[in-house]
């Protein structure tokens, strides 16, 4: 791997890969192995994405604390470090268009480059979980808790409440227990009936491998540790004035209140689509996964020719499937650029497709089991929906009552989604409120537009773009 200083970024690249998580690393390596000249930009200081964050540079004395699936990333990151490609760490992409012009920002300097092919491998982000007062210090995402553990060996010291649902929440609980953390309670918001509806997908999930058993073993060890576990939790609220002091909720018809200075929220992950939406790729609603996803062909190419998506940015499939989809996309780019004929591409792709499909077999079960209730996505009036511009759910409902035609107009009326996060933590909520108030489907409501800059850039930096 050639780690590059910024002065020598090529103005014209053969292939630009955005993101160094499992999908981006695999796509870049596969294309490079077949002779493509690859340039990779990543936000983080180290390769591995969020899932394999610091996997070979961990501050933890023993990374096995985090489990085998994390350690699995070690050889992947090591192989990436030895690949023949140009890798730029700590570099954010603030612009992408359909002509494959890309704006990057590194060490305060903005560069504009163009590429023959682009693979977006920007992964996933956590689905917003808006509950009253979730903006208080002391409320974070479960993903944030796990990043602190991976990158800084940090764990809660006064105990923690975990609330929401999904594999990541259970994994974090299991990791915290192994690290000796006191978990005050797990508040599982999975609605009643999900398990029953998921059962029809169970045989396929069982046949697919051992992921399901891993999950069951994790749940068993959480049960053995006697962590207070509340099912079908609703009316979740964070409480406190300037900092979190307690969490209140309802479960089994009773109201509860638990004192805590840390609440970690999680209700699944959704594709990180910002750069793809901004470029103008066609986006579809996935009802099973309750999120927008990029419309792609079998190789990950979007509706914009030459722009590809690999990994969770296309649809949520997890780290191993992301890596495999990255390989497929890398093969197709090598083919399109003349490094690989169609026969050889198909021959190499066959076992990868088989392995990826095997990985994805558990998804319909997980999607049904952890389907988020409407109440989990549509908060009460007094909840801040847009954390950046501090717009409440009531204000969104008020503009809908006034006849506001959709999420993009609501943005203009209320500034909701115009803050620094650019709607990453409110767009999904606003769209869901619209769907509910109007009695429309999410596909009818449509998605919120994304505009450059994708990441904060000063006017001075913009003006001095090289």
């Amino acid at each position: 791997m050639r780690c590059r200083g910024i002065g020598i970024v090529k103005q014209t690249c053969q292939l630009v890969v955005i993101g160094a998580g499992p999908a981006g690393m695999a796509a870049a390596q596969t294309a490079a192995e077949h002779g493509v000249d690859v340039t990779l930009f990543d936000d983080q200081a180290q390769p591995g994405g969020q899932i394999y964050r610091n996997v070979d540079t961990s501050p933890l004395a023993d990374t096995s604390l985090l489990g085998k699936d994390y350690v699995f990333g070690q050889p992947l990151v090591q192989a990436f470090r030895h690949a023949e490609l140009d890798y730029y760490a700590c570099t954010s992409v603030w612009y992408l268009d359909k002509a494959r012009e890309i704006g990057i920002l590194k060490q305060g300097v903005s560069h504009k480059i163009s590429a023959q092919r682009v693979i977006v491998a920007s992964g996933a982000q956590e689905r917003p979980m808006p509950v009253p007062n979730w903006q208080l210090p002391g409320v974070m995402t479960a993903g944030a808790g796990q990043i602190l553990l991976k990158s800084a060996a940090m764990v809660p010291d006064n105990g923690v409440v975990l609330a929401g649902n999904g594999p990541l929440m259970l994994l974090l609980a299991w990791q915290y227990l192994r690290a000796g953390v006191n978990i005050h309670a797990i508040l599982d918001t999975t609605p009643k009936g999900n398990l029953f509806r998921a059962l029809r997908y169970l045989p396929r999930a069982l046949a697919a491998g051992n992921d399901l058993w891993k999950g069951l073993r994790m749940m068993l060890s959480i049960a053995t540790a006697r962590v207070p576990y509340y099912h079908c939790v609703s009316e979740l609220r964070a409480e406190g004035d300037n900092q979190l002091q307690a969490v209140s909720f309802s479960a089994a018809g009773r109201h509860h209140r638990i004192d805590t200075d840390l609440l970690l929220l999680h209700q699944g992950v959704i594709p990180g689509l910002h750069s793809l939406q901004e470029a103008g790729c066609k986006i579809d609603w996935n009802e099973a996964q309750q999120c927008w996803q990029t419309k792609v062909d079998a190789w990950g190419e979007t509706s914009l020719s030459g722009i590809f998506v690999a990994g969770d940015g296309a649809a949520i499939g997890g780290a191993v499937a992301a890596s495999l989809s990255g390989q497929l996309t890398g093969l197709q780019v090598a083919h399109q650029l003349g490094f690989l004929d169609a026969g050889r591409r198909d021959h190499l792709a066959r076992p990868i497709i088989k392995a990826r499909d095997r990985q994805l077999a558990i998804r319909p079960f997980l999607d049904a089991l952890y389907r988020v209730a409407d109440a989990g996505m549509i908060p009460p009036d007094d909840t801040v929906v847009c954390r950046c511009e501090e717009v409440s759910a009531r204000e969104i409902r008020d503009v809908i009552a006034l006849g506001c035609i959709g999420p993009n107009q609501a943005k203009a009326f209320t500034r909701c989604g115009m803050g620094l996060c650019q709607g990453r933590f409110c767009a999904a909520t606003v769209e869901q409120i619209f769907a509910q108030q109007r009695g429309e489907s999410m596909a009818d409501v449509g998605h919120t537009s994304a505009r450059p800059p994708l990441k904060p850039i000063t006017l001075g930096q913009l003006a001095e773009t090289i």
Partner: protein
Amino acid sequence: MFRTLASGSEKIEIYLDGKPVPVPAGISVAAAMLQLGALPTRLTPVKRSPRAPFCMMGVCFECLIEIDGLANQPACQVEVQSGMRVRRQCGAGELAS
């Protein structure tokens, strides 16, 4: 709120709101603020409400902070460096240093 499992790790000194404080080397500014218990890490420009790091992966921008004179830096994306001057923002940050 948080403690470290790597207690023997190397320490460096940063300046938080003008005062020198020891923090572990190699972690992000946001992680350091959480470990120091230095919350909130900013007051918002809109309603001056207290905020702290939230997503830790560069998506939510809640952890914005002034670093070495430059305002609105995402603290979760910047590694602590010896002698770094970190200042908490109250309201909108001044972009020019």
